[in-house]
């Protein structure tokens, strides 16, 4: 009796799958981009970019209890040339901002940024002259993880959200799609009640 094959339907529901899905088909047809995005999502190399206390939780995430390597991310790279994911862990001071931007520019495309913790995402309690009020003023951020600091499972949730985003094909496909810094101020809708 032949071994029954599980059909793997990749994220894209419009992807044609030959063979009966219920019975378990044996041929999968998909786009090259879909496969590439799956590979990208499951082999992110984070950059060691701990700026403050959030870095302790980031290190804990790499430890054996929470084990980031289950998602193919255990290789924390010290060189931006070898990393695709920047986890901004900690408050970003204005003195550090140009350094962060330079390191971000040195990372090869496609690159992703997780802003970890309240301070990196928005400034947190440090609403003062020294701290950048949100790392998205310096680099484009893909996923914000709130918390002070976020527990390792909260960071893992953010990482899973980022993997979802990459699997859905949000990586830049054309030079025009590459993210640039927002130049226009955001318009936040007035809440009516």
């Amino acid at each position, binding site marked *: 009796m032949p071994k029954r094959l599980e059909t793997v339907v990749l994220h894209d529901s419009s992807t044609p799958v030959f063979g009966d899905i219920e019975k378990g088909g044996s041929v999968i047809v998909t786009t090259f981009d879909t496969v590439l995005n799956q590979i990208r999502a499951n082999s992110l190399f984070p950059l060691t970019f701990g700026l403050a206390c959030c870095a302790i939780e980031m290190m804990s995430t790499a430890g054996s209890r929470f084990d980031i390597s289950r998602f193919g991310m255990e290789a924390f790279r010290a060189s931006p040339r070898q990393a695709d994911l920047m986890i901004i862990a900690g408050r970003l001071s204005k003195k550090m901002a140009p350094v962060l931007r330079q390191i971000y520019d040195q990372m090869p495309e496609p690159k992703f940024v997780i802003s970890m913790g*309240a301070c990196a995402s928005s400034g947190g309690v440090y609403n003062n002259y020294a701290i950048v009020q949100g790392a998205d003023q310096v680099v484009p951020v893909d996923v914000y993880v709130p918390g002070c600091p976020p527990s390792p499972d*909260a960071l893992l949730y953010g990482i899973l959200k980022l993997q979802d985003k990459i699997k859905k094909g949000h990586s830049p496909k054309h030079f025009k799609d590459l993210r640039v810094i927002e130049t226009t101020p955001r318009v936040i809708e007035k809440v009516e009640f």
Partner: protein
Amino acid sequence: MEVVRDVVKPIIAGFGITRRRLAHKKVTIMYPEEKRQQYPRTRWRHVLTRYESGLERCIGCSLCAGACPARCIYVQASENTDAERYSPGERYAVRYEINMIRCIFCGYCQEACPTGAIVLRNDFELANYRREDFIFTKEMLLEPMPLQ
């Protein structure tokens, strides 16, 4: 003989550590499938609670906003009327917003609240893609109505 002393014996000793470790309990929590139990005093996502009758506990006093070190809570109060009653007292919060990305989950709002309306529970899955999505409004924070 030196080969045995310098190469074979250390290798066997090294694998001995591996063999002993195999008998240990596995420490990894397989996070998305299995969640670790949070500690009883864990402070994560805020919830605005209700009384058993379904009335809101929040009276719109803004003490939580005053206690917040990150200034991330905004409360706007309004008067209750007999026709539209939201909370047992005179006033209720018509608008209650928390900027979840600026919040540091210190729990001072919970300590300051005179009626125990705002509590920090243990839902930690808050990460999101857009900064605008982190403004949690009253509708998102309020507990669902208790079953009658």
